[in-house]
């Protein structure tokens, strides 16, 4: 049974969290503020942390920063006020794995937890968050892990043959496929933006397939949707690209 630390200053929310997460099969540790949360983290070292951002005293972002400093591998999911993308971006920049809007729906919570679980599993197998593959219709950039600025060079290296050393496929469109359990932070968004700009500069059509709803919002808020069309699945994106090329 995996243990999870939940930090929230709202007692009723904390109670509900505990009940729900227990029902989902977690061993739940609760903390009512940031300081207590950090202390509990020290004590229990859970692999998963759920924290509210807005808290008196040490807030969620500070908790995130300190935990990531201590233990970068720990998955930290932040809880933000509804539609507060700026705060979500700030958290992602601090290497938060994911974010959930308030009021928290059970589905969103379960998705976030599942993706975290997958990332934890993947981290053990491979640390490459992005691969490139070529299909009949497009060059596909698969993002599967936690995609951030730290992987920028790798990606650029991967991107170069993608666009320059494959003359036969120069007119192939680019499809960025964000997998279910991927996580993208601010640096990752910036790199993606650069790649899309480059692809468009070469006359390629670009589409993004992103099943997680919350990251679609991040793409929209960051302005990437002005450069590329955004779709819920790879199939829809491929169809859209075909229609455009055709």
């Amino acid at each position, binding site marked *: 049974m995996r243990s999870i630390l939940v930090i929230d200053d709202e007692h*009723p*929310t904390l*109670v509900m969290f505990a009940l729900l997460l227990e*029902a989902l099969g977690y061993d739940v540790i609760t903390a009512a503020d940031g300081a207590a949360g950090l202390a509990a983290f020290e004590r229990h070292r859970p692999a998963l942390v759920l924290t509210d951002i807005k808290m008196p005293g040490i807030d969620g972002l500070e908790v995130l920063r300190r935990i990531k400093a201590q233990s970068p591998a720990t998955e930290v999911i932040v809880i933000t006020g509804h539609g507060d993308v700026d705060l979500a971006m700030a958290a992602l920049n601090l290497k938060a794995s994911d974010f959930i809007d308030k009021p928290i729906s*059970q589905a969103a919570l379960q998705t976030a937890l599942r993706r975290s679980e997958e990332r934890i599993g993947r981290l053990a197998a491979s640390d490459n968050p992005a691969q490139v593959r070529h299909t009949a219709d497009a060059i596909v950039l698969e993002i599967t892990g936690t995609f951030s600025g730290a992987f920028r060079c790798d990606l650029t290296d991967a991107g170069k043959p993608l666009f320059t050393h494959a003359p036969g496929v120069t007119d192939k469109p680019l499809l960025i496929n964000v997998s279910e359990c991927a996580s993208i932070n601010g640096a990752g968004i910036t790199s993606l933006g650069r790649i899309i700009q480059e692809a468009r500069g070469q006359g390629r059509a670009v589409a993004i397939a992103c099943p997680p709803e919350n990251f679609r919002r991040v793409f929209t808020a960051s302005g990437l949707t002005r450069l590329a069309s955004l779709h819920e699945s790879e199939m829809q994106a491929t169809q859209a690209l075909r229609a455009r090329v055709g």
Partner: protein
Amino acid sequence: MIARFRSLSLRYKLFLTSVGMVLLISGVIALVARGILLGTLHRELELRGAAIAQSIAERGGGYVLDKDQAGLVALLFDAAQLGERKALVSYLFITNADGELLAHTFIRPFPGELLRANVNPEGQQTSARQVSFDGQEAVDIAVPMQEGIYTLGTVHVGLRQRHIDALEDKLRLTFLGFISLVGVIFFLLALTSSGYVVRPLLRLTKAAESISRGQLDQPLELDQELSWDPRECPAYGDTDLPCWHLDQLDKAPDHTPPTCNPCKFYRSRSGDEVVQLANAFANMVWSIKLYRNRLRESEERYRPLFDANPDAFLVLRVDTLRFLDANPRAQELYGYSKRELLDMTLAGLEPADNPTGVHRFLQDPGPERQVLSSKVRHFRRGKEPIFVNVHACRANYLGREVVIFSAVDVTELVEKDAQLIQASKMKTLGEMSAGMAHELNQPLNAIKLGSDLLALMHEQGQCVLPERFSRVLSQISAQVDRAARIIAHLREFGRKSELTPDAVDINTPIRGVFTLIGQQLALQNIAVDLDLTEGLPRVLAHSNRLEQVFFNLVNNARDAIQLLRAQRGGDSYAEISIRSWLEDGRVAVSVSDTGCGIEPQALQKIFEPFFTTKEAGEGMGLGLAISYGILKDYDGDIAVGSEVGEGTTFKVTFPAAA
């Protein structure tokens, strides 16, 4: 008789008195004079008769001694016929010493009774006696005829009584004529003099009567030089100018205006008492004229001020609370005609339980004779409420104790104020929205988690432990209540206030502020210290407006704290503390912060509209100005103390509601 005399006019009294006096004096004089005159006449005639007799006696002695009878007769006839004696002398005769007849002038037989009718007594010179003979009346005067010591005889002279009577008649007639003439002259004199006294009196009487009928402008014909032109009097036309005479001013020569020296109207004339009386009367009439003119001018001057005043004016009797007068504006404002207003009492216009206004002034006038109460609720026709500023003062009006009050309609102003406050409240609501969203999100979040949990259990077909199930349900219910409370509070805050205030526990709006933004302050790491005294007297106010005021103060405090943090960097400890307590019978609330403080020069201006220290576009600078306006409406007061870099304290006080 005397009563009848008294009822006569003065003229007749004077006339009758003087005429009576003249007649009385004339009568007395006539009686006395007649006695003297007639006596003298009789004596004179007797002396004349005696003289005739003596002359005969002297001359006739020789004839008697000679016994010459013829000579005697001739002597007698001569004497009798001499001159005018003929008319006077009736007869002459001489007797001898023995009484025998010697000669006489009768041409008829001698009436023998004459011989013994008048016998001269012994030793007496003359004797006169009334005699009558042959049906004639005469006065017989006997004088003795003497020769040495012998008496030769007696000469008798008969004076004709008829002649004497004629003389007497003539004398009496002359005398009566004279007396009558004097009487007539006196009569005329009395008539004239009584007229002289009475005529001015009559004129004065007439004048007084016409004055009493209000006719002051008819000329007073007291004397010719008295011709009034009121325009010549400087005090007549200009009622602001005092009259030295009428107002009894000190008549210092350097103060007297040249036009009044001498006064053309108040004069003293030389003359008898009647002239003096007329003069005093003329002065009195002028005084009345001047006074009445001044009174009328003053009435004419103030009546238009009352009638044309743009403010409503009402005159209220203190004892009956009924109206005595109302100007046209008052009739227009309250929607009643003057007649209707005069039939009404104060209660028809002003509710008796008003905390301010005319009723209050009547019950508790205070040290001032006049008072101003603002935004007093009155009723127009049809119980339509209006707000007026009332200015009331006590006065005397037509001899009654009254309160005169003006009412200025400020309904529109009050409504505009309410709109402004409402608009600023809406702005405040906007400022609150972030905090409110947070406050609302918390219960919604808990509810969502709870319901999802139940749904999950349901989907998975798991059996929920009853203890957990009830915990989830009670939490959901509690959170729904919490959200409902926030929304209800929000609605209460946003609601447009009634125009009349309620009795409010001051702690309620203070707590209300933190219902909406308490969590937000906590998230900004601002500690809130509430030190509220329970059981404070209530204050007359609108709870949501007070909440707006306190929200403004707390919001400013938070901004000040954030500003100080931005200046110093970091997230230093900050606190907003609110106290409520009772101070000198007033309810006091202080809001203190540990923010950046206010510059001394800005401190004086912070309650001014549109004054702001915030960046352009961040604040209108109306928050404190509107708060100030709201507090003033409740007779509240606000004071501020601040130290730059240390913090600011606002202190608000209210009168405790009775």
